[in-house]
Each structure stands twice: as structure tokens, then as C-alpha cells.
């Protein structure tokens, strides 16, 4: 019935807030004895990648003339990685961000960039904290509760 490590309380709270969605659960399920740091690696990679992506996005939006295709490309990337991680709110922002790119709406793009940064920061701070805490628990020999999905 039970399969692998699972979602604990702290992270579950992020589910209620819509910050994370089911995809994150999937990732947690992929972590086992043979890959104990899988989740941490993926999440760290996501954080680093996204920081770079956001910088690129800012740069591309400052360019004159604005090349919406480039902007769209970056947003597409961001959307992909955030959806793989399960950062739901970030992904939602990216979806509407793309609409702005399609409509060539510069102000909309700038607003969405700010929003994307904000949502990303939320995920980063909350998820980062949670994971550090989890790591501590595991390091100290504790066990994270199981989940059934």
C-alpha cells in the first residue's frame, strides 16, 4: 500500500496554499535509498537555473527593440522547469506571461516579470526552509512520515 518516502506536514502546508502541486509529490516519490539526495539536487538545480533565467528575462526585457520571441523563449523555459518541480503558482504566472508576449504587451510583460520573481522567491524561501528542516531531521536519524497516493 505504501510506496516510498512521502509528503510531510510542513511541505503539505504549501499544498494548501497552492504553492506546490502534485508534481512535487512525484518528485518526492523518486527519492529512495539509492538516490537519497535526488530531491535536494533537483530543487537546487531548479533554484539556480531559475535565478539565471530571471536575470536573462530582465535583460531581454530591457533590450531595445524588444524581441518578444526571445522573451517568450525564456518564459517557456521557466514554465517548463517550474511545472516539472511542481511550483504551481510560478507556472501559472508563466502561462499568463506568455499571453502578454503573444499580445506584445510590454507593460504586461514587465508586471509579470515582477510577479514571477515574487512567486519564485516565495517558493524558494518556503521550500528551501522546509527542505533544510527535513534534511536536519533525516541527518539526525529521524524518519519522515509516509504517504499514500
Amino acid at each position, binding site marked *: *500500500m505504501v*510506496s516510498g518516502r*512521502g*509528503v*510531510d*506536514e510542513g511541505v*503539505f*502546508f504549501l*499544498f*494548501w*496554499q*497552492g504553492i506546490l*502541486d*502534485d*508534481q512535487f*509529490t*512525484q*518528485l518526492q*516519490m*523518486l527519492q*529512495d535509498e539509492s*538516490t537519497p539526495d*535526488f530531491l535536494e*539536487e*533537483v530543487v537546487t*538545480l*531548479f533554484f539556480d*537555473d531559475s535565478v539565471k533565467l530571471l536575470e536573462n528575462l530582465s535583460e531581454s526585457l530591457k533590450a531595445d527593440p524588444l524581441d518578444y520571441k526571445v522573451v517568450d*523563449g525564456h518564459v*517557456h*523555459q521557466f*514554465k*517548463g*522547469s517550474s*511545472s*516539472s*518541480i*511542481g511550483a*504551481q503558482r510560478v507556472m*501559472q504566472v508563466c*502561462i499568463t506571461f506568455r499571453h502578454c508576449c503573444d499580445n506584445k504587451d510590454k507593460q504586461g510583460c514587465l508586471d509579470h516579470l515582477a510577479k514571477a520573481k515574487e512567486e519564485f522567491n516565495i517558493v524558494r524561501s518556503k521550500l528551501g526552509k522546509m527542505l533544510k528542516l527535513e534534511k536536519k531531521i533525516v541527518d539526525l536519524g529521524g524518519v519522515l*512520515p*509516509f*504517504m*499514500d*497516493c
Partner: protein
Amino acid sequence: MMDSCNCVEPQWPPDDLLMRYQYVSDFFIALAYFSIPLELIYFVKKSSIFPYRWVLVQFGAFIVLCGATHLISLWTFSSHSRTVAVVLTVAKVLTAVVSCATALMLVHIIPDLLSVKTRELFLKKKAAELDREMGLIRTQEETGRHVRMLTHEIRSTLDRDTILNTTLIELGKTLSLEDCTLWMPTPDGQSLELKNALRADPLNVIVPLHHPTIKQVFSSTRAVVISPNSPVCVTRIRGGKYMTGEVVAVRVPLLHLSNFHFGDWPDAGARYALLVLMLPLDSARRWHVHELELVEVVADQVAVALSHATILEESMQARDLLMDQNVALEHARQQAETAIRARNDFLAVMNHEMRTPMHAIIALSSLLQETELTPEQRSMVDTVLKSSNLLATLINDVLDLSRLEDGSLELDIQTFNLPSVFREVLNLVKPIASVKRLQVNLTMGSDIPDVAVGDDKRLLQTALNVVGNAVKFTKEGCVNVIVGLERPEYPRDPRYPEFCPIPADQHFYIRVQVRDTGLGLNPQDIPMLFNKFVQADSTTTRNYGGTGLGLAICKRFVNLMDGHIWIESEGVGRGSIVTFVVKLNVPEVNHLSIQIAPTSQPSGSGSRTDFSGVRVLVTDDNGVNRMVTRGLLNRLGCEVTLAASGRECLHIISQRSQAFHVLLLDVCMPEMDGYEVATQIQKRFPRRERPLLVALTANTDRNTHEKCLRVGMDRVVTKPISLEKMRSVLTELLERGSTFDLNQRL
């Protein structure tokens, strides 16, 4: 005596007429003198008080001796002997002594006697005064008695008219009045109207309040003497005009409330009546102070009695009103009960009568669908089936709701497997969701108990309704269902923060949240959504159908389970979040051991759990995606190679000695996208030798799907991929691929 004398006149012979007269007079004098003391003694003896006995004796002696002298002198008219002369002399001497003594004594006595007279006069005056005062006291006592009697009369009745009439009559009697009148304020409060009178005819006489006399009387707590010419001095007309003596008027406070403290009555805003008392003209009577006091006392008593009467009137009115209302309520209650009974009977009948034909229609239409039909006929049958299903839902909803409304619905409590309820819900909506290309995800918390006690059917119905709505109103994106144990720190309903579930030993609360990326809602519309027959927008019914009862029913069920349901939305087009919290009971210990098998296995039957030896090449320009996909495939036991671009992918393929079984291609890549890679691969490899091509795309629309298939992709998978999806895709692919091919590759 007969000696020579020096008289001028010649001596006169003794036996003359004069002598005779003297003789007689002396005799009478003596007689009188002797009788006077006798009379005195007689009367003194008769009277009881006589303080002057000694004087009487003296006086008696004096008189007696005088009388004796005069008597003896009788013998001196003729010749008389010496003895007579001696006796006469002795008598005269004695008389002289006594009379001198008496004279001396009288000097003492006469002032006394005179003062007696004065005292007598004084005493008479005093007696007269006392008499008068006695009369007054008696009058006062009578008056007091009258007042007591009057008060008793007034207070013995609570009828306003009797009080007033009795007052007037008794006052008239007590004070012997010409007339006595009572003036009450008119409803408009501007004037006084003559309401009750002893003798006068109340002929709608009205006097304005601003009259100086009235003002004067109202401003004083005492009875005031007023002029007989003032307009309130109305009495019966005799001889063509009012004839009254002195008039007195006093104010009678009218109280609306029962809080009276004598001497403490509020003056401001108080209403007064006026009591006017008129003395008869004929008598020269004037108003005495004690009479005024009597009048004031009576006025106070009247005020008290009137306020009691008012209170009684009011409470009688209130009681009558209440009785009427009671009767009306009773009637209404009976009507309501009759109506409910009628409704229940109707429902009971309709329940069966309506459902039976509906089922027949639906069943037969479904059967008809299975037969051979022309396209026209098929579309007609489809419509019939759709409409009947809708009607059946409508009927069920309405019947359910009616039963929920009157509280006749009871939960069907059982022990059941909690997680399977939600899995069932997901299974039920998956078909529709996949048609709409929506992702539906279920995340369940680790602390959800496996077994719970409650009404699982209604829980399922509620969850299904909510998730169904989410799916219905979402065109693209996803629907996420999150189920977990309720905790106090979880955010509460902003519109109803009082709902705060507290778990206990015997029960617990679960929180279910359904998030969608659908139409969203205007925050203003949210409160109405749980009302019957309301949908957020009138166009919703047109476009999406439905009765609008679903949420109302959900709310009733949730309430029956001691829970709460609420909706949040950031706005139109921003999706919505429906959350409900319900109470479930902890199962008894012996039930826990019953493992109720979940209704569906997480993995489909016959799916492999181990793909060891399967070589997969993942091509994706996104680093995170690569890592995640690799993790997924590793979990399934595959051998994974990563490529960051289409070019790299082709390069790796050409390099490798051992071929790959499966190629996972992200379709949206810069430079060379997945389609091109696929085309290239098709060119390079013959059909049987090439790896299986799986397209990974975030797009759910039909065009992408078709394009992928056209370029030769074997499968199209939507991102993000779950473990289960990957497992099922791989299973299907590897089985579909001919065993010959598979063996060759292995």
C-alpha cells in the same frame, strides 16, 4: 329729748301725723331689715359656692342690728322708759361698730367682686373661642375622614371614569362646592378640554394651555386660588350666567409610566389635568388653608389612581394583543404543519412516480444507442439521452434537497476506506477530464487515516460534485485535489472565521481542497453560490447547463457532517478554490484491523514495475526537466542518457553501438525541435530498427497532438509527467512493439 332746745321752730307735739308715718316706716324698715338676712341665708344655703361667708355674717349682723335699732326706735315715739333708751343705745352702738367694720370690710371686697365680673366676661370670651376652635377641629376631622373615604373610593376602582366621577362627587359633598370640574389635555397637547363635571354640562369647552391662569396653576404644586372670571370657571348656568364664589384650581399630573415618587415628579414634559373647585356664591365662605391642603391631597391621590388605571388599561391591551397573536400563530403553525405534511406526501409519491418513467426512458434510450442507427437518428437519440439524464439529475437534486431542507435526511453512517473515496472521485471524473485534456491530480496527506466512520456515499457525492464543477468550468489547465487532516493553523474561511473545528478522541476533521485554473468567480457572487438555483452568471446555465442545486446540496451535506464549505477566487478568469472541512468519526479498535481493500489499484493491472535493461534517451533543453525525467526513469529501472539539444541527440544516436529502445523528445526546443529530430530519425532508420519515439509537450491541443503523430511519433505525453503515467506509457509501448523487435533490440 324733750329738753329745751335751740330750735328755730316751735316744738311740736309727739302724737302727730308725721309721728305716725315715721312709726310705720320704721316698722317696715325693721321688717325688711330682718327679712334680708333671711333671704341671704336662704339663697346662700342653696348655692354651693360662696366664698364670702364671713362677710355675709357681718352683713347679716349689720342688717339685723339696723333692723333692731329701727324696731326699738318704734318704742321711742311715745314716752319710754330708761331701759328702752338703754337698749336702743346699745343697739345703736353695736350697729355703729358692725357697720363700721362692714364698711371697712367692703373696701376689700368690692374690688374683688368687681374683678369677678371681669373674669366672668373673660371666661365667657374664652369659652366662645374654644367653642369656635372645637368647631374647627371637628370640621377638620370630618374633612380628614372625608379624604380617607374619598381616597378609599378612588383607589377601590381601577376604572378611570369611576375614579373621576367619585372624586368630583365626594369633593363636592365634603367641601360643599357649587361645582367641581376636571379638565383633561386634548390629544394635540395644546389645550384643555372639560371632561368631567359635577353639575355643569361638559359641552366641549376648550381652553388653550397658554392662558396665564392655567400657566400659573400648572407651574405650582399647590392649589391656587384663581379669579372666578377665568375661562375655566365653568359651571351650570343659573339665571343666565355662572355664579360662583371663590374658585380654586390645582394641577393633576398625568403619568405615562408607573414610576412615581411623590415630590419628585418630573416637571418638564409632564402633562397635567386641571381640577377646578368653585364655592357657592351665596355663602360668604372663603377657602381655608386646610381645605386647600385637602384639595392638594385629593389631586395627588387622583393622579396616582389615574396612573394605575392607565397601567392596567395598557397591560390589558397588551394581553389582548398577545392573545390575538397567539391565536394567529397557532393557526399559522397548523397551516405550516399541514403544508409540510402535504409536501412530504407529495414527495413520497413523486419520488417513486417520477423516477420510474425516467429510468425507463434512460435505459431504453441507452439500448437504442447500441442498435444500428442512421447518423440523424443517432444524434436524435443522443439528445434524448442527454436530456433525460439531465432531467433525472434535476429530479434527484430537487428531491434530495427537499429532504435535506426539512431535516428528514439522515446520514448513513458506516465504516469505510477513506482514501478510496477520493480515488473513486478521481476515476469518475478522469474520462471527462481527459476529453477536455485537463490534468486532474490527487494529493493526499500522510496523516489521513485509512479507515473512518461516516457517510461515505454522501462524502463521495459532495467531493464528486465539487470536483465535477471544477472540471466543468475549466477549459484548460489542471484541477488539483488535496486531501489532508485539518489542523488549527490552516487558513480559515475569510467570510466565516468563527468556524474552528476542534478534534477530539472520538472524531477528527479532514480538509478537502479543489483548485482549478478555470473560469473563476467574481468575489461578490460568492456568497450567493450556495443558495438554491443560483449560478454565478446567468450565461452559465445557458453554456454549461446544470440546475445550480449542486452546491446547495453539498452545503447541506457538509453541514450535516458538522463541517463548512467555502469558495475563494481571485477573480474572473483566475480559477477558483473550493475548500470543505467535514467531521468523521474514529472507528472502533476492532474495525481498524479490517483492511478494506481500495477499489482501484494505483497501478493498472498488468503494468510492469521494472524496466531494467530498457535504454532511454531523453532530449530536453531544460536542465531541470532533464534531471526530473532521469529520476523518473531511474526509478523505473531504465538506463538513461541525457541530451540537451536535438543535435546532440542525433549525435549520440549515431555514436552509440547499442541502440536505444525509447526516445523521449521535448517538442519545443530552440534550433532543432522534437519534430525535426523525429523526421531525421525516420530518415536514418528503417521502421523496424528505429527506437520508439515519445513526444513530450506541455501543449494539450489537438493540433500539436496530430502534428506529433504525423511526423511519426509513437506516443504523445503531456508534461509534467507522473511516475504512473511514465510507467503506463512505457508498458504500453513496449508491449505494443512486436516481441520480435523487442528481442532484437535486447
